[in-house]
């Protein structure tokens, strides 16, 4: 999918983004040369000057339709980063391009317009308005745009149905469970039909069972809607479960960006390695990662699998009697082949990692 994803157009790109906190942070940020050169050196220089760099030289692109997860422990700067992308927090330096338009240069009016049409955001503690019913909460973004009552009501009902909350339209947030409240949050952020969807630790305030359920719900929605998603989490399992690509942050710095399989296979450093040591390769490695080119051999007997099938899936089918796999695309054309030994090699690597 790397190939497929990178062939898609770029939705959002973030170039050399800094956020610095401290006395006169903005003036310091503009000072010549402070932010140039090696990023580790610059952040050292900033700390020496009494500043706190919260986001350090963030550089990445997000492709249309991709789920891009930013993961880090608390205090790593991931929430600050996502707020800089939507300019809820004013970045100190850098560029954020949405469909090629520089967000940091946008006027307040333009920014409001973009937020009204192009972005939606879901918050950790839901951010629901306590005085409005579910229906009015979901309709709120349309109300501030001054859309007619009928239109916003019907659109809100649609969204509420989408997240499975029919029948609770007239309840107030305080009467809902955490999971239900976050469904309202999801519905509201989707009400204007934004192409870019920010989710800031949306499921972190929920208990584990509900969290799992909401992740499934989220994946179901994404299969239907195909948004471009920036998803913040501190939960590694959640990140590897949902992500197309993951950016791992530590102390304000993005230390690795890659597909889950790449990160587990080749962690950038000791820190990432320790972080992902509990993630089994069989879960994150996909059929397309280990397939061999088809060189005219006979594959008729092999089972057909999707390129995104995990090694774990393949292992189960091997146990069920399959002997090899044919990786096929949507149209049924063969992309490559996977034999049993390739699958078992991954299992063996997992065993070795665990030692």
């Amino acid at each position, binding site marked *: 999918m790397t190939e497929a994803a990178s062939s898609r157009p770029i939705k959002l790109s973030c170039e050399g983004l800094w956020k610095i906190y401290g006395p006169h942070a903005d003036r310091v940020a503009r000072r010549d040369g402070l932010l140039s050169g090696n990023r580790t050196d610059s952040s050292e220089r900033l700390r020496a000057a009494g500043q706190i760099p919260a986001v350090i030289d963030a550089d990445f692109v997000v492709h249309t339709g991709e789920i891009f997860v930013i993961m880090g422990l608390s205090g790593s700067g991931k929430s600050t980063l996502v707020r800089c992308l939507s300019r*809820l927090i004013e970045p100190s330096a850098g560029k954020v391009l949405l469909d090629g338009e520089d967000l940091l240069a946008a006027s307040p009016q333009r920014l409001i317009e973009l*937020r009204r049409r192009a972005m939606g955001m879901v*918050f950790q503690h839901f951010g629901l*308005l306590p005085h409005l019913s579910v229906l009015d909460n979901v309709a709120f973004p349309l109300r501030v745009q001054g859309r007619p009552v009928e239109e916003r009501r019907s659109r809100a009902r649609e969204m509420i149905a989408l997240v499975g909350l029919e029948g609770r339209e007239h309840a107030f947030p305080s009467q809902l469970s955490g999971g239900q409240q976050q469904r309202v949050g999801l519905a509201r952020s989707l009400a204007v039909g934004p192409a870019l969807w920010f989710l800031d630790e949306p499921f972190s305030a929920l208990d584990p069972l509900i969290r799992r359920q909401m992740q499934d719900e989220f994946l179901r929605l994404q299969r239907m809607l195909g948004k471009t998603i920036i998803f913040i989490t501190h939960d590694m399992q959640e990140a590897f479960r949902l992500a197309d690509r993951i950016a791992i942050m530590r102390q304000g710095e993005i230390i690795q960006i890659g597909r889950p399989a790449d990160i587990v296979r080749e962690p950038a450093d000791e820190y990432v390695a320790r972080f992902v040591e509990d993630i089994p390769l069989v879960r994150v490695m996909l059929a397309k990662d280990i397939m061999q080119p088809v060189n005219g051999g006979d594959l008729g007997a092999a089972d057909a699998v999707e390129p995104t099938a995990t090694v774990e899936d393949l292992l189960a089918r091997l146990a069920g009697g399959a002997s090899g796999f044919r990786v096929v695309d949507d149209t049924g054309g063969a992309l490559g082949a996977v034999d049993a030994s390739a699958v078992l090699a991954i299992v063996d690597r997992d065993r070795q990692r665990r030692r």
Partner: protein
Amino acid sequence: MTALAGDLSGRSRLDTGLGVWLPVLLFVVACLALRNAAPWMSLYPQEWVLPIAPAIDAFSTTLTEFVKPAFRGMAWLLGWPMRGVQSILQWIPWPVMLALVGAIALRAGGRALAWFALGTLLYILIAGYWRQSMNTLALVLLAVPMSVAAGFALGVLAHRVPRARGAIEVALDLMQTMPAFAYLIPLLLLFGFGPVVGLIASAIYAIPPMVRNTLLGLERVPSDIKESGLMSGCMPRQQFWMVEVPSAMPQLLVGINQSTMAAFSIVIIASIIGGFEDIGWEVLSSMRKAAFGQSLLSGLVIALLAMVMDRITLGFAGRGGAASRPAWLTWRRFWGIIAALITLSALLHVTGIADQLPLTSGRGLIDAEAMNKWVLALVAAYADPLETFKNNVLYFFILPLRIGMIGAVAPISWGIELTPTVIAIYVVLVALVALALGRSFGWRPAFAMIVAGLLFFFGLSSFPWPALLALVVVLAWRCAGPGVATFALLSCLFILVLGLWQPFMQTTYLCGLAVLLCLLIGGLIGLWAAHSETVSKIVRPINDTLQTMPQFVFLIPALMFFKVGELTAIIAIMLYVIVPPIRYVEHGIRHVRVDCIEAGRQCGCTPLQLLFQVKLPLAMPVVMLGLNQTIMAALSMVVIAAMVGTKDLGQQVYIALGKANAGLGLTSGLSIALVAMMADRIIRGWAARRHVRVDI
């Protein structure tokens, strides 16, 4: 190893504390020894008084002459809506008014509140205070919207503009600690006598709680909600009116409740200068005539009205039984009922039925004279024990505190002469208590005991002021750091050079005695309530009721039983300030962390050990906040209590009010405010440090 180091550093810190305090004690003793040689020490000489008050007076007189026409014009303008609202309230026939208030109470807090409100109005009608109550109500109805609007605007300003915030907070501190009487004086000068001054005074006095609650509410809007508003694409104005204000609404409604109560309290007090046909005036004039039956009747009107207003505004704020509001009474039907009732009043007037209604004359059904006689008989029946009690308190507490044992101990009061033997016994007693305290609680209580012993022996009013100054400043420094110490020093010097040191001392011992007694009595009640659900359930509504009363009301029972005098003032103050110690002690003890209590129990503490070694130390910061509240309340009550005979700062304010003397009024009012702020900063500083220590 580290524990040992911590222990050692702790000990060295104790020593520095003692190292500071011992020289202070020496200085105090030296001052006491020298006080006969240098009389300027015990009595601040009149020649050293700076003519600040006369200067202010002269300045304000000139200024007033200059701006008076504008303000008189404003008063004239405000007189119109005031008379308008008053005549509307008088115009509504009483049965319709009952229905109106009943409907509002029903909407606010359900059936129970509606019955209570109806009962209150019926009582007012029967007691014959309908006209007066409606006039008072009109002032409140007019003052509250003005102060809510101003308070909201200022709160928003403080929230939005960080630079304005500091200034606004200082102004709020000053406004809330400055006794109400003190700013009646400039208003009196500017606006003249009359009910409009009461209106303006209450509108101003009711601003601070609204500002504070607006600020608090806006600040407490969760960042997730604010960000979700922004991400929904709100314009700045939409963000404010559609996201932030509705989210802060519960707190804003609490602000309206507090503003209403403050306005009501001042409307009552302002009757002193704006005496006309209102309920405060009824209480005041009946008290002046010593017609206690009438003052009880009218005082009860104030008390009941206060409770009704409090419960109704709280009900609209969604607190206190809002769930019991009947479902059928939607907003739409509510307004329908109101409109129908107003139409009905018009109909009653057109048909002339309104004038035929019984009780419309406003004379009531209760024979006030009989009531007066009954109260007098009641007081006379208990005259002897009351007199004994009064004398005992006077001889054994008030006099020693004021003029010291050297002045108070005489055969006619204590039954003994102040012979060297008696002095020796006293010294030994104090030393023994100090020693005992020192052995079980450290040197601090022992030191406090010695200072208290000295104060009690020599009396506050002639205690050398340099010694007291040193004690206060060092206390402020040790508790809250150099900034507060400087503030305390400057405040005390300010009071000194104004020549108000004597009244200041009177205030100190009046309030000090009231606060100590309340802390003792209230603390015990609070402790009891913390350990017994039943007591807690009984005490809570009593506390709620006491807290909603306007301060004025507390004078009535005190005056009735003890006549004019300082004891009466102390009792009135105590009635008003008993609530905070009860509340905070109960709250503090109840909210000690469960794991700490369990750990204490696990270690084998007896219940008493658990109380003194686990619960009380952990509850201390909360208790100190309660002490802070107690002192603030006592200082605000001290001015009201001046009406029943004191010689303190409050009396100065009261005198100034009588003479319309702006200089004396403002300086003594400011002195009270400074004392209040000083006590507040010292206690908060102490609690802040203590808190840190408890958390670590």
